[in-house]
Every structure is written in structure tokens, then in C-alpha cells.
């Protein structure tokens, strides 16, 4: 936990963009994620067939009219793939956002305020960390049953203590620095200090963590869909498409290859972007993996 996760120089947010910021590996990652995001966004509009209609026998192999063949109910695999990216991406983004709303607040507050509040918040974080992400969401599913809101909130809550830890560790080194003391002495509000002084200077460990959290959420949601607790059929969703066609794998693997590749591109791509980003310390990248799932 003694990793150097903080930039010594203040950072301006505007400098993130531009290819000089990424190595070749990072640009490859950006390309991979870009392709998948593009498919997810425009996919539903270019799908050749209806994603819900049954066109023929289950597990019909690919043909000229159905390029990836038919799925376990005889629906067009290509159209379902093209329509299924949106929910995966949106859910993962929403869950990560929920996690950050809570984790960022808790981590910054604990580091900045210190004292009793710090101890309470970080102890609570430690307690929540004893539940691995998937187990935590399963516990919630057992109580509430599975629905979209629960997926977002549950995966977000599972992320929150992990985010809080990273933010707290990073912020702890900054709150002692003279410019924070100066701002505090100048009578600035806590909200202003958090936004203008703290956040920009712990930006790079958080950026690294955000990527890891996002790919972790994608994996978690896909895993939940696989177990039958995620997106519910008949909705097209990449994780769900893979799990529902698993039994037909030997006869018709083509209907699940596209979503498998898409999820792999997405998560590998995000990790390549993190690796290839020239900002952020080596240690923060290696360390944040420590609580990825």
C-alpha cells in the first residue's frame, strides 16, 4: 500500500487528449475500444434482421441470408449481436458512475476531514471489501430479485469501497501539501477544494482506476448474465447471448463468437489503454489491479 500513486507535479485536465499521451500499445487499445463502442452505438440501426424474430431451426449454421447463423431459438445471431452491445456498455458505465459517486465522496471526505469521520468511513470500507464483487451482488439479488436497477446499484455498490480505497490512498498524500493548506487557510469551501485542488492532482491514479473499474464492471455484469441474474431474456445482450447459446457451442459456435470477441476487445482494449497511457505511475497501474474484481 506504500506505492507512489500521486503525481508530484500538478496536472491540468486538458492535456489528456492527443496521441502523444499514448504509446503504440495505448493507441491499439483505443482502436479496439473505439470499434466496439461504434458497433454498440450504430449496431441497432444497421442490424439486417429483427433481433426477436424466429427465422428457422435452432442453431442453423451460417448462410448467405444469416451471416452468423441462427441462435438457440432460431433468431438471427448477427442482428442480436449488433443490438446487444448497448445494454452491456450502458449498464457498465452507469454502474461505474454510481460507484464513483459514492467512492469518490467517501475517499475524499475521509482523507480531507481526517479524525473520527476518517476512521468510521475507512472501517466501513474495509468491512464492505470482505465481499468479493460477484458475491456482494448475489447477496443483493437473493434479497431483491434481479432487475436492471439492482444490477446498476449492486455493481456500483460493489465497486464503491474499492474506489474509495484508491481515492483515499491517493488523496492522503495531497491533503498534506502546502497548496491545500493555503486554500484551507484562505477560507475556501470543502467542495471548492475537492473540485479545484484535490481532484486534478489525484487525476492519474483515478483515471487508471476508472479504466479498471469499467472493465471490471463489464466482466461482472457479463458474469451475472451468465449465471442468469443479469439482463433477462429475450433481450439481446452480449453476456446473455454467450450464456444462452453455450449448449449449442459444438454445433453452432458462430452465434457466440462475435459477442465473445466484442467483450474481449473491450476489456483487453481498456487494459491496453491504461498500460499505454503515458500519464500515471507504473505502481498505480499495477496496484489498482489489486482490487479489480
Amino acid at each position: 500500500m506504500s506505492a507512489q500513486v500521486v503525481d508530484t507535479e500538478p496536472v491540468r485536465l486538458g492535456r489528456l487528449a492527443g496521441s502523444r499521451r499514448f504509446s503504440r500499445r495505448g493507441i491499439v487499445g483505443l482502436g479496439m475500444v473505439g470499434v466496439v463502442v461504434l458497433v454498440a452505438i450504430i449496431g441497432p440501426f444497421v442490424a439486417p434482421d429483427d433481433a426477436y424474430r424466429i427465422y428457422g431451426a435452432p442453431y442453423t449454421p451460417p448462410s448467405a441470408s444469416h451471416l452468423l447463423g441462427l441462435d438457440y431459438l432460431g433468431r438471427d445471431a448477427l442482428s442480436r449481436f449488433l443490438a446487444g452491445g448497448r445494454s452491456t456498455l450502458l449498464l457498465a458505465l452507469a454502474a461505474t458512475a454510481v460507484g464513483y459517486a459514492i467512492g469518490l465522496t467517501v475517499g475524499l471526505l475521509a482523507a480531507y476531514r481526517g479524525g473520527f469521520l476518517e476512521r468510521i468511513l475507512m472501517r466501513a470500507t474495509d468491512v464492505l471489501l470482505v465481499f468479493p464483487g460477484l458475491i456482494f451482488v448475489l447477496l443483493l439479488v437473493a434479497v431483491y430479485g434481479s432487475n436492471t436497477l439492482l444490477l446498476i446499484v449492486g455493481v456500483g455498490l460493489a465497486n464503491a469501497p474499492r474506489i474509495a480505497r484508491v481515492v483515499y490512498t491517493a488523496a492522503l498524500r495531497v491533503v498534506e501539501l502546502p497548496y491545500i493548506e493555503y486554500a484551507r487557510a484562505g477560507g475556501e469551501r470543502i467542495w471548492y477544494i475537492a473540485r479545484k485542488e484535490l481532484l486534478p492532482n489525484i487525476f492519474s491514479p483515478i483515471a487508471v482506476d476508472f479504466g479498471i473499474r469499467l472493465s471490471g464492471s463489464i466482466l461482472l455484469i457479463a458474469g451475472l448474465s451468465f449465471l442468469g441474474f443479469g439482463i433477462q431474456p429475450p433481450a439481446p445482450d452480449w453476456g446473455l447471448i454467450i450464456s444462452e447459446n453455450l449448449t449449442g457451442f459444438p454445433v453452432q459456435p458462430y452465434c457466440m463468437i462475435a459477442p465473445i470477441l466484442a467483450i474481449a476487445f473491450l476489456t483487453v482494449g481498456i487494459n491496453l489503454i491504461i498500460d499505454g497511457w503515458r500519464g500515471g505511475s507504473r505502481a498505480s497501474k499495477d496496484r489498482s489491479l489489486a482490487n479489480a474484481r
Partner: protein
Amino acid sequence: MPRLIAKRLAAGVLTLWVASVLIFLAMNVLPGNAATAALGRQVTPQAQQQLSRELGLNQPVLTRYGHWAWGVLQGHLGKSVVNSVPVTSLIKEPLAHTGILLLVTLVLLVPLALLLGIGGALARRGGIDAAVQAVMLIFAAVPEFVVGTAAILLFSILWPVLPSVALSVTPGTLALPVVTLLLVSLGYLARMVRAGVREVLDSPHVAMARLKGLPERTIIRRHVLPNCLGPSAQALAATIAWLAGGIVIVEELFAYPGIGQALVDAVQSRDAPTVEALTLLIAAVYIVGNLAADIVSILSTPRLRSRL
């Protein structure tokens, strides 16, 4: 040092207690009581009341928590709501099965990860290191069920040497689940070990040893490796927590009769006592793992050893 260890131990026990309260409250206070959940769609007010009385749900939450916690301490985990079998006997066999799976995985994982992690940190950056990193990154970034499916495709369909369904526990049926778990966790653990070793390599005392002109072998053996023990133990504890999620999915994929499947079944049927018992168990494994890692860190760090 004993005081430091005792402090960690107390913190662990406290954490486990708070976790047990959280699990119990989540399963009992939040809307939808266990009786309603167990009865499902056929719920009628009478049936619900009767089952509530049988389960003791009409008592105050605190009494119920006390009752449950006292039972857990004595090894009674309550009765399954679904088939009225004691949870202890329900999860005994799956527990042993998952224990075997986890043990075999760890026995293979730890030496491999240490080899790759320490080797990767010590080696000069080159083509082989980069290739190994890339392959491990891919396996760590792809969902477990995809890796597992690929393993099934390779070893039970294209080249049918191993069974894809593990209804019983034999070396043959263990092979594919273990390989899948290894592939998804190896990159992760190796990478964290590597980060720890690199940190030690960059530390002042290693630079000092180099300046003294010690041979590189001696530096690594005497000054680097002993200091890698703590971080590696921490990384292993984190990996066991990470494996908990992987095990659930891998058991479901291969129909392996372990606690992962038991948990999924219990969640599906909203069997509160079983879910409580299994999540508490997983939390306890996490806490014990971290405690062990902390103790290894304390014992292997002279700085912490001398501090009272």
C-alpha cells in the same frame, strides 16, 4: 510484534462480526421477508404467517440475530427454507469439493505466478517478457466463462481427452475447471508479484548493496527475495478473494458440485439461511486470508517486527 499481530487479529474478528450483522440485516430487514420469498408466487397471508412463525420471523430482528449468531458460533447454520435440511449438512460436501478445487488451483498457481512475476521483474525488458505480459493480460481481461468455454472447445470437442461436465470429483473432471481458474488468475497474481519485486528492486537498500559491489546473485538472494515475501503474500490473499467470483462461474459452467453452485441455487430459490451461511463463509475466508498475509508481512519485515 505480538501486540501488532494481536491488533490485526482483533480487527479481523471485529470485521467478521460487522460483516455478519450486515449479511443478516440485508437478508432480514430489507423488504420481502424470507417467508414471502420462499413461498414465491403461491403466497397467501395464512401460509406466510405460518411459515413466519415456523422460521421465528415474528420475533424482533435483534433477537433473531442473536439466535442466529449464537447458532453460527456453535456450528448450527440454521435450516434451509427450501427443503428444511440443516444448512450445515447441505453445504458440507460442496464445501469439500470447492476446497479441493481451490487447493489444486493454488498449488499450481503460486509457484507459476512467483516464477513469472519474479522472473519478469528481474529480466531485462525484451520480446519474451512483452509476449508473456500480453498473453496474461488477455486471459485476465476475458470473462471466466469465455476462457472455460474455449477450454471445453479445445479439450473436450476438438481433441476429446477431458470431460467438460464435472458431476463427480476426479482428477479428470478437475482438470478443465482448474485450468480455467489458473488462466484467469495467473496473469493477475504474476503482475502483482512483479510490481512488488520491482518496488523492492528500486528501493534504497538494494541500491546500497549494488554500490557496495555485491554480486548480483547475492543481492537478489539476500536483499531482494526476502523482502518480496510480504507483498507476494498480500497479492495471494487478494487473488483468493478474486478467485471467489471465478469459482462461482467456473462451477456453474462445468456443473462442478461445489459451494459456488450451492450459492447460485440458494440465490435462485431465495433460500436465506443458506445464502447467509455461504456469504459469511466467503467473508471469513477473505478475512483469514488477509490476516495470514498481514502476519507474513509483519514477520518478514524487521521494521515492523521491532515496533511494539
